[in-house]
């Protein structure tokens, strides 16, 4: 039990949880709605800095700073989504890449974000008047993970989720079926941003120190790799992909200098042999199942239009 409660391991558990939330959020934008974002870390940063600044300068407690960070990132998601989502595919990837760079450089240079020095002494959350232990922080993080997964699942299996999938598969058809595609894309973007805001707030109050280095392009690319590895659009996939990629650098630590080499190699091999990701069921596989079903007798009766019932 002692080893599990070891702060080093608990730290990994928290950080992995934060990555799962980030991955679940980007999965809504890229996996559900099909909008590639290379700047997800920007919202992670906005959430972290908002939460940190509100507690440091506004003396807001963590339990208010976190929802405030979520609201701020949701609104920023809408404001940034409206112009960026007017462009598509590769262009959108570049626009979001640019947004990520802008926010990192702002964080690096603004006075309010502490510039290159970053922000330190961010207060740790308190629970019932006591500072939260590492263990309770880990539990809380994973409660947020569970909530995030549940919300994503509910959203996906709804009228809104179906509209997202339609946009991902064929935007013109979505439009013709009555889906206001701009509005729905911005909605996905804002929800993904909100997830990143929560993750950012957790990160800031766990590490108690943040600087622009934590929110660079590398971070955005890692989160995107997580959901691609897990299988775009799959909630268990996003969770598994995030856990694997967040743990890999720790597990591979004994390899020292070869660590990132092996990590990269694993990614390449996986994408070569399972391009649809761990949990992505490729169209080919699904079609094969369906063809088997058709062979086994298919539909109960071949109906040529069952209009008498009306």
């Amino acid at each position, binding site marked *: 039990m002692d080893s599990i409660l070891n702060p080093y391991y608990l730290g990994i558990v928290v950080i992995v949880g934060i990555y799962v939330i980030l991955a679940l959020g980007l999965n809504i934008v890229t996996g559900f709605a099909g909008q590639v974002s290379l700047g997800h870390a920007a919202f992670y940063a906005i959430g972290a800095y908002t939460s940190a600044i509100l507690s440091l300068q506004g003396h807001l407690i963590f339990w208010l700073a976190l929802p405030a960070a979520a609201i701020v990132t949701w609104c920023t998601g809408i404001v940034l989504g409206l112009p960026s989502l007017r462009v598509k595919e590769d262009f959108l990837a570049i626009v979001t890449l640019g947004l990520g760079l802008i926010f990192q450089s702002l964080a690096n240079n603004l006075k309010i974000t502490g510039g290159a020095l970053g922000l330190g002494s961010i207060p740790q959350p308190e629970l019932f008047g006591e500072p939260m232990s590492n263990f309770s922080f880990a539990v809380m993080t994973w409660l947020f993970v569970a909530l995030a997964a549940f*919300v994503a699942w*509910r*959203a996906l299996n*709804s*009228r*809104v*989720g*179906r*509209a997202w*999938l*339609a946009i991902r*598969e*064929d935007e*013109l*058809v*979505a*439009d*013709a*079926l*009555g*889906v*206001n*595609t701009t509005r729905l894309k911005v*909605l996905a973007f804002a*929800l993904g941003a909100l997830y990143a805001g929560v993750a950012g707030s957790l990160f800031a109050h766990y590490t108690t120190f943040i600087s622009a280095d934590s929110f660079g392009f590398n971070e955005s690319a890692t989160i995107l790799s997580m959901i691609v590895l897990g299988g775009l659009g799959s909630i268990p996939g996003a969770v598994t992909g995030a856990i694997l990629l967040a743990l890999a650098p720790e597990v591979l630590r004994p390899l020292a200098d070869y660590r990132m080499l092996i990590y990269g190699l694993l990614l390449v091999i996986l994408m070569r042999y399972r391009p649809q990701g761990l949990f992505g069921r490729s*169209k080919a596989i*699904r*079609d094969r199942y*369906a*063809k088997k*079903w*058709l062979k086994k007798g*298919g*539909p*109960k*009766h071949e*109906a*040529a*239009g*069952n*209009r008498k*019932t*009306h």
Partner: protein
Amino acid sequence: MRLLETEKLTKTFGGLTAVSQVDMHVDSGEILGLIGPNGAGKTTFFNLISGLYQPTAGEIIFQNQRVHGFKGYQMAEAGIARTFQNIRLLSSLSVLENVLLGSYTRGKAGLWGAILKGKRVRDEEKRVRQESMEQLELVGLQDYAHQPAGVLSYGQQRKLEIARALAIYPALLLLDEPTAGMNAEEVEEIMSLVRYLKSHNKTIVLIEHNMHLVMNLCERLIVFDHGEKVASGSPQEIQTNPLVIEAYLGKEGDDE
């Protein structure tokens, strides 16, 4: 009653005029056929009245309302549904999910409603699922509801597109070559489906090359050639119209 009317509707792409000054109307409850050679501008015309293209000039009036500049989703909300010449199903989604998408405009559930999933949202979801199954029964695909749309045969995919469009409960249904690539039996099924829809007061405009279908099903025809409306009238009138014969077969003494 006039359901849809266009006045001097025009669409140009750069220097090319795809649809030129088209005046036409659709009355409630009728089946109107659009015919003409390939490249005559029929599909472009559909794209204009379904809001997928914005007109360069002219007016579109739907249910006495100017719908000029409406986007595709606004036309769908107004009650215009369509199918596509090159079938555009979401092939990785199930057959039922494709039809459920068609019911998008008839739902209200937003993001937060979907997450909280209160009674109203649950009831709505139940209702649209039931109604979507009814649309599938109408075209005879109810047993395929949970299969991916991609495994359906070509003819079934066309029927699924019609079911999806019907799920909008449209006032006007636009069918772009509904029988393209179908065998004779499937063509008969589509014809009986269209007749059934007419008997239920649906208004249908269809683009079709199958003359057997056009002449037997449509009450009125409009002929397009080079982006212009060259003739309109009953199937009998059209069959004997010299301008139509010219559009299809070329002028006498024409080298082409």
